[in-house]
């Protein structure tokens, strides 16, 4: 969007606000989530509807030749000619601008030539601070826009309408911006142009994951390359798998992910889980922890020949979406469902399945233990649980009903967070078994398929 410093991303015709961004030190940063209760967005609209009030403020011409790109969520795009002006908004006027250390900011208001409704489409920094009120200008930040009213269908506009439509112009402007970050080749740029919905997805990914860091850029570059090479992939499924929308409840800071193993956390879920009945539905729930949030195995800092405990890694994996679990609490928070000595406890298995269904339905991942080899050292022959993993999804395929899991036994995200990490429920035996996609672990001598031994209840990490 040439001439604009902010970025307009319209996902939904009914929305009146969205997220803003700015560029800083090569990163896209989220600036503001306009809260309609706090932002005074209606106040803005009222101002725009009353031009006399606007004129009473300091105004200046907006970016010339500006165009508004519209994604109406139907993959139709248009770029409409608009006329704009910018207005200086002094501080403390009811707008909520977290992190703004400026003494005000500029609002650019644009109006469609053919549409009576005025459109507030962007907050932009003052591109030329000269002549601004004191303190305003150089430190002001680009924020977001809101819009109001019903948008015309950009691809079904009356040809006689004075609205000018350029189906690609808006996209090109966006692409130029994101291409500066990603450095895509021509084929990749063309793919992104043809699949423009992914542009917004990538931007959101940057926003939610700390900006355009090297790792994030590499991940998006991989996604573009992969999608270009696999044109038959369903984009929605791909988005759900790799770019899910999750709510971070706790800060997944590396220093506070884990808890002492013997901690007894309060479980606010006092549900008495009934046994799952085989004729009950088995919903399909896509992964509740994003692919990019995979926690790779690592070695101990004080001894590089030792590995971080898989239970700790699994807890860290839960922590990525704000959950943890208590220590071993077999009579309250741990479902013990299988041991090598006694086999399956069918009643507990079915209760554990009910719990898993309930949790995954609420986007809550669940830590489980598995047995993957026979026997144990002499000091504890009764031991069954050899490894811990995290259940992140479920569904049904040709092999039956399964739970999908993340396996932190590797530092390779492609296998550790693979879609093919699946544990199948056998309703006849009650066993929940399956193979890990971590082939070099799975194929070791003496190893067998994972058998779920226990399910631990997830607790919100406060």
């Amino acid at each position, binding site marked *: 969007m040439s001439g604009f410093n902010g970025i307009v991303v319209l996902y939904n015709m009914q929305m009146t606000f969205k997220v803003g961004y700015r560029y800083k030190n090569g990163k896209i940063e989220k600036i503001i989530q306009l809260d309609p209760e706090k932002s005074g967005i209606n106040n803005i609209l009222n101002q725009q509807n009353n031009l006399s009030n606007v004129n009473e403020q300091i105004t200046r011409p907006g970016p010339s030749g500006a165009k508004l790109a519209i994604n109406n969520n139907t993959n139709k795009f248009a770029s409409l000619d608009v006329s704009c002006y910018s207005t200086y908004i002094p501080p403390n006027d009811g707008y909520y601008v977290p992190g703004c250390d400026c003494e005000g900011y500029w609002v650019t208001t644009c109006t469609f030539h053919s549409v009576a409704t005025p459109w507030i489409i962007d907050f932009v920094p003052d591109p030329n601070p000269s002549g601004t009120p004191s303190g305003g200008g150089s430190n002001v930040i680009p924020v977001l826009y809101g819009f109001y009213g019903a948008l015309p269908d950009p691809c079904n506009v009356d040809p006689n309408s004075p609205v000018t439509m350029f189906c690609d112009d808006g996209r090109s402007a966006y692409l130029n911006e994101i291409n500066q970050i990603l450095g895509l080749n021509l084929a990749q740029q063309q793919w992104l142009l043809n699949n423009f919905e992914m542009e917004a997805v990538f931007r959101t990914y940057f926003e939610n994951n700390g900006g355009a860091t090297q790792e994030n850029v590499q991940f998006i570059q991989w996604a573009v390359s992969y999608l270009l090479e696999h044109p038959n992939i369903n984009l929605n499924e791909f988005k759900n798998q790799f770019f899910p929308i999750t709510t971070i409840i706790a800060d997944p800071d590396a220093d506070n992910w884990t808890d002492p193993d013997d901690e007894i956390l309060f479980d606010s879920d006092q549900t008495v889980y009934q046994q799952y009945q085989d004729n009950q539905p088995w919903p399909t729930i896509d992964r509740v922890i994003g692919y990019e949030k995979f926690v790779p195995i690592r*070695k101990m800092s004080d001894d590089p*020949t030792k590995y*971080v*405990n898989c239970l700790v890694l699994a807890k860290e994996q839960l922590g990525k979406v704000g959950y943890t679990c208590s220590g071993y609490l*077999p009579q309250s928070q741990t479902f*013990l469902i299988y041991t090598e000595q006694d086999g399956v406890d069918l009643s507990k298995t079915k209760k554990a399945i009910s719990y898993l269904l309930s949790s995954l339905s609420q986007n809550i991942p669940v830590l489980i233990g598995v047995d993957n080899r026979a026997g144990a050292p002499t000091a504890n022959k009764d031991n069954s649980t050899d490894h811990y993993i995290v259940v992140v999804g479920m569904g049904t395929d040709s092999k039956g009903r399964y739970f999908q899991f993340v396996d932190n036994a590797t530092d390779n995200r492609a296998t550790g967070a693979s879609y093919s990490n699946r544990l199948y429920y056998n309703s006849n035996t009650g066993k929940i078994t399956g193979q890990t996609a*971590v082939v070099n672990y799975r194929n070791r001598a003496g190893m067998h398929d994972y058998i779920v031994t226990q399910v631990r209840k997830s607790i919100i990490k406060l």
Partner: protein
Amino acid sequence: MRYLTILLIILLFSCKHLNAQVYEKEVKNTILNFLKWHKEGKEHKPNEYYFVPRYDGKGTSKNYFDRDSLNLYFNNFRQSGFVSETYINQLKEYFDYYEKFLGNKPEDGEMIKVDGLDQDIVLNTFEPEEILDNLPQSKITKILIIYNKALVGINFKKNVDMIFQLTKMKNKWLIDYIGADNTRNYSLFRQ
């Protein structure tokens, strides 16, 4: 004369009881001090690496933990003064068991879990805090001392019980064996 005999019997009984109490205290101190030593990670010395997989040819029988490196580890236990050579053999058996699952040399630098190296080696659990964080409130549940041998059951918290076997050598109790007491159905070590 009759009173003297009774007095002697009482004295003898008291001495024996006193001796048992002293032994019990010595045994418990040895166990708890060893666990404190382990909790502080004293078996790991700076710049010493103990668990080095070796891949000396094709076939899993050629894969093993480097013995020289392991010996450094075992020596640290010997030098602690808490354990006997019998316990060192228990440690050796631990690595003998797990090296069967070492697998082939990882390709392309991929880091993959090595079973046995991501849990507490001494306590055989992924959750050592269940024991090590409960040392002050640990209680002897059963103890049997015969001459120079002691068999001790210790409870650390609900469902967390362990067995220790010790031998008295040169007037000092040394740990021969550390294992799980899985008497309870919900024992931590049964999971």
